[in-house]
C-alpha cells in the first residue's frame, strides 16, 4: 500500500512538472511582461557555447580573433604599435582642454573611466543614454556646442575614455520600467528584423552565419560586439564609433541606414550591451 502511495505521488509530481520557461509573454500588453532579458542573454550564450566549443564566452570580447588563430596572430602583432594610439593621445588632450567657462570634461566624468556606466536607460528622460550623448550633455551644461556624432573629435574623446575604462565590465541594469523594457524590446526587434534588399537581419550574419567566411572576412559573434569601441577599422583608415558600424552594416544589406545616435541605434546598443553583460571592456581596438 505504502509502495503504491509513493509511486502515485511520484507519478503526480512527474506529471505536474513543466520545463522552465521564459517569463516573457509576447502577447502581453506590458513591455515589462513581454521581455525576459536574462532568458535572451542565456539563449545567446548557449548558442555560442555550442557554435564555438572550446572558446570561452569571455574571449568573444576580441571578436573574430577569439576563434580565428591566423587572424589573431596578425592582430596581436599589430597591437605592438596599435593604430588607435594616436586617437587616444588626441582624446587625452581634448579631455584636458578646459571649456570657455573654465570647467572641463573631468567635472562631468572624473578621470574619464566611466564607459562601464553606459549605455543606461534614463527614466526621467525616457531614453537610452550613450557615452557619446553624455559627452554632448556635458558640453551643453557648460555652454559648449555639441560635437557632431560622426566627427573625429568625439570619437577621439571616447577613445581616450574607453582606454581609461579598460578592465571594467559591461553591466547594463535589468530594464525596470515600462519605458526601459520598451527600449530593450525595440533593440531586440531591430537586431532580429530582416532589412534591405538582401533581406538580412543582424542575426543572419552574427548568429546563423557566425564563424563562417563572407568573402575574405570571418563573421563575428554578437557576444562582445559592444566591448571594444571606438575601433580603428582598416576599411575606414581611422577610428570610428559603434553606431558608424551599425550604419555600415545596414548599408551592406541594402537598407537605408539610420542617423548615428538615433533612437533605433541607441536601443540596439542597449540590447546588445545587455547581451554582453559581464564581458570585459577592452576598447579602443583595431579591426580589419
Amino acid at each position, binding site marked *: 500500500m505504502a509502495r503504491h502511495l509513493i509511486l502515485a505521488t511520484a507519478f503526480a509530481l512527474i506529471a505536474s512538472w513543466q520545463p522552465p520557461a521564459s517569463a516573457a509573454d509576447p502577447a502581453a500588453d506590458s513591455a515589462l511582461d513581454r521581455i525576459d532579458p536574462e532568458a535572451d542573454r542565456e539563449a*545567446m550564450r548557449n548558442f555560442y557555447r555550442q557554435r564555438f566549443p572550446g572558446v570561452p564566452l569571455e574571449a568573444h570580447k576580441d571578436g573574430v580573433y577569439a576563434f580565428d588563430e591566423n587572424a589573431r596572430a596578425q592582430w596581436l602583432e599589430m597591437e605592438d604599435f596599435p593604430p588607435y594610439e594616436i586617437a587616444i593621445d588626441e582624446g587625452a588632450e581634448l579631455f584636458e582642454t578646459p571649456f570657455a567657462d573654465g570647467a572641463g570634461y573631468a567635472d562631468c566624468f572624473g578621470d574619464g573611466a566611466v564607459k562601464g556606466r553606459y549605455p543606461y536607460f534614463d527614466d526621467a528622460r525616457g531614453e537610452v543614454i550613450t557615452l557619446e550623448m553624455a559627452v554632448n550633455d556635458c558640453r551643453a551644461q557648460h555652454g559648449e556646442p555639441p560635437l557632431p556624432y560622426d566627427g573625429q573629435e568625439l570619437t577621439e574623446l571616447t577613445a581616450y575614455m574607453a582606454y581609461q575604462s579598460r578592465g571594467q565590465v559591461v553591466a547594463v541594469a535589468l530594464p525596470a520600467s515600462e519605458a526601459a523594457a520598451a527600449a530593450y524590446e525595440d533593440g531586440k526587434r531591430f537586431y532580429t*528584423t530582416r532589412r534591405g*534588399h538582401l533581406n538580412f537581419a543582424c542575426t543572419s550574419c552574427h548568429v546563423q552565419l557566425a564563424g563562417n567566411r563572407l568573402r575574405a572576412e570571418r563573421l563575428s559573434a554578437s557576444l562582445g560586439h559592444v566591448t571594444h569601441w571606438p575601433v580603428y577599422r582598416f576599411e575606414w583608415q581611422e577610428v570610428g564609433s559603434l553606431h558608424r558600424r551599425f550604419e555600415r552594416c545596414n548599408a551592406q544589406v541594402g537598407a537605408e541606414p539610420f542617423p548615428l545616435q538615433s533612437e*533605433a541605434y541607441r536601443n540596439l546598443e542597449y540590447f546588445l550591451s545587455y547581451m554582453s553583460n559581464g564581458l570585459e571592456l577592452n576598447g579602443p581596438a583595431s579591426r580589419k
Partner: protein
Amino acid sequence: MSRNPILTVLLATVLVGCGRATEAPPDPAAAARDAIALAEQRQQASAELGHAWHEPIVLIGAARDALEAGAYDTAKERADRAAAMAEAAIAQAQAEETAWRQQPPFAS
C-alpha cells in the same frame, strides 16, 4: 433627340470616333513624372515603416536625372524599378511585424 435606333447608333459612332480623333497622343514626359511620383510615394511609405531600402533612393535620383536630360523612357523605367523595390520593402516590413520573433537564438 431622334427616336430612330439606326440614327442613334450612327450618332453614337460619330461621337466616339470624334472622341478618339481628339485623344491626346501619349506624353512620355508626363508618364515619367507620374512614375517618379509613385516611386517617391512608395519610398516614403517604406521609410515611415522604418524599412527604407537604399537602392530605390538611388534609382529615384537617377530617374530624375534622366527626366532632366529628356530621356523619358529611361526615367520611367528607373522609376518603375524604384517603385517595385519600395513595394518589396513595404512587404518586408509587414512580414517582419511578426517574423522577427522567430529568429534564432531567441525563437522558442
